[in-house]
């Protein structure tokens, strides 16, 4: 992605213009509007549950296997299911080809996503079992992790795994002083940009994932987090719709 960042930055500087004018963003969105979001449940035949998500130009597939036996067996927990979460970018999902395999970034993201989902799934209903969640980034633009969680959540529901609700995920941040929802790559590259990805149990407003990089006051953080609340509720509706469509297709 580096090469592209470089170019975008140059463009921004050369133009010496604002990206956001009168509350309208380069792609025509309002400040608190998410990018177009397409969700399709049940896309991987072999999996127990799966989902494909297009979040703007970011594309991700997630699949869930389980509850199933734990292998090797000494890893099993007699009280609850263990969750194995993998996040990966396929080699040609980014401008600079990524070597196959997990790097430190993907290990960290898998960890925070696992923790974002752990309390939401009724793991204690499946002692001595494993639930595997795999997320594969097919095309990477802004917001790969939030697209991935959004997909994983639908895949879990599609697999019929009981949850306290759907986890929805989006980033918000600051661009040219504006608090905006769901930044694009172009917006992330503005010099004052902050990006704050969040995952939320939208039903209760509980925040189960939160990361942030940048330089912001506590006030700004509060406004940004509040904006993600709206985003997550919007996303939850689209997630629910995708699940109903899948259900209807199956029973049709």
């Amino acid at each position: 992605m580096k090469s592209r960042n470089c170019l975008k930055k140059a463009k921004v500087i050369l133009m010496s213009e604002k990206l956001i004018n009168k509350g309208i963003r380069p792609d025509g969105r309002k400040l608190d509007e998410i990018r177009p979001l397409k969700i399709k449940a049940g896309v991987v035949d072999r999996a127990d549950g799966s989902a494909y998500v297009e979040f703007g130009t970011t594309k991700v597939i997630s699949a869930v296997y389980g509850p199933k036996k734990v292998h090797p067996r000494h890893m099993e927990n007699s009280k609850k299911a263990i969750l194995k979460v993998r996040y990966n970018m396929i080699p040609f999902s980014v401008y600079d080809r990524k070597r196959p395999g997990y790097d430190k970034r993907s290990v960290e993201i898998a960890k925070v996503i696992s923790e974002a989902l752990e309390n939401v799934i009724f793991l204690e209903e499946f002692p001595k079992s494993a639930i595997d969640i795999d997320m594969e980034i097919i095309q990477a633009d802004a917001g790969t992790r939030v697209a991935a969680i959004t997909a994983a959540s639908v895949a879990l529901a599609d697999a019929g795994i009981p949850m306290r609700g759907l986890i929805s995920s989006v980033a918000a941040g600051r661009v040219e002083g504006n608090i905006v929802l769901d930044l694009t790559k172009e917006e992330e590259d503005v010099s004052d940009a902050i990006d704050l990805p969040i995952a939320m149990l939208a039903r209760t407003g509980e925040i189960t994932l939160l990361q942030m990089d940048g330089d912001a006051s506590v006030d700004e953080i509060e406004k940004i987090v509040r904006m993600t609340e709206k985003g997550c509720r919007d996303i939850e509706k689209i997630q629910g719709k995708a699940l109903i469509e899948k259900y209807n297709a199956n029973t049709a």
Partner: protein
Amino acid sequence: MTAKLTKDYIVNQIKRNIRGDDRKLDEMRELTIERGVSANAEGSARVKLGKTEVIAGIKMDLAEPYPDSQDKGVLTSSAEFLPLAAPEFEAGRPGEVEVELGRVVDRGIREAEVIDFKKLCIVEGEKVWRVFMDIVVINHDGNLMDASGLAAMAAILDAKMPTIDKEYKIDYNKREKPLPLTTIALPITVMKCGNKLIIDTTADEEEAIDTRLTVTTNESGNISSMQKGGPGGFTVEEIVEICKIAGKKTDELIKKHFKSKKK
């Protein structure tokens, strides 16, 4: 019904020319090829062959040529079974099945000289284009070899080369020319079950029968690569027969899915 009984049943049915999905032994499943599935790649394609689903992508950068071919571009391939594609796939170092898949698809493209690597030389002995051909398996319902070969070929045809400036800096946003090609080549895998030959096997069928020959044929009907797999053996006559089946099927596939799109 135990796994053993299921396997015996499949074998017995195949011997009677009957397949689980009512196909003929030499009939492929429905094939769809969708190009341009990952915009950050120079080229990409998603292949669905029945329920089997594979994505291939082409990325390019600049590299030094190999010492024994100073005037040619370089091809680097990989094949990966994503953990989401089947319950038995594990994350981690590629296993021998992935290694073989990647190498067979790579050799099919390389030996048929699908890409004209001489035209990917920029400064002889110093700077050439390197083509990364990566294959990821999204859903595994058998015949990964052919699905991967089809996806690789489609991604190559989809690819547009990025441009470079005088200082050899790559601009991935300005992709212009297609990759220079000389032919189209596709692998066809034929499996053997008793004295029957069968193509485009499903995962269930591959549980029951396991000896195969993959033959990559190019546009002119010549064979560029072969690879036998599985524990059994073939007679010379069977090998010749398989080469002919592969040639015929490749010809059909090229006509139906590739011919019109190649320039």
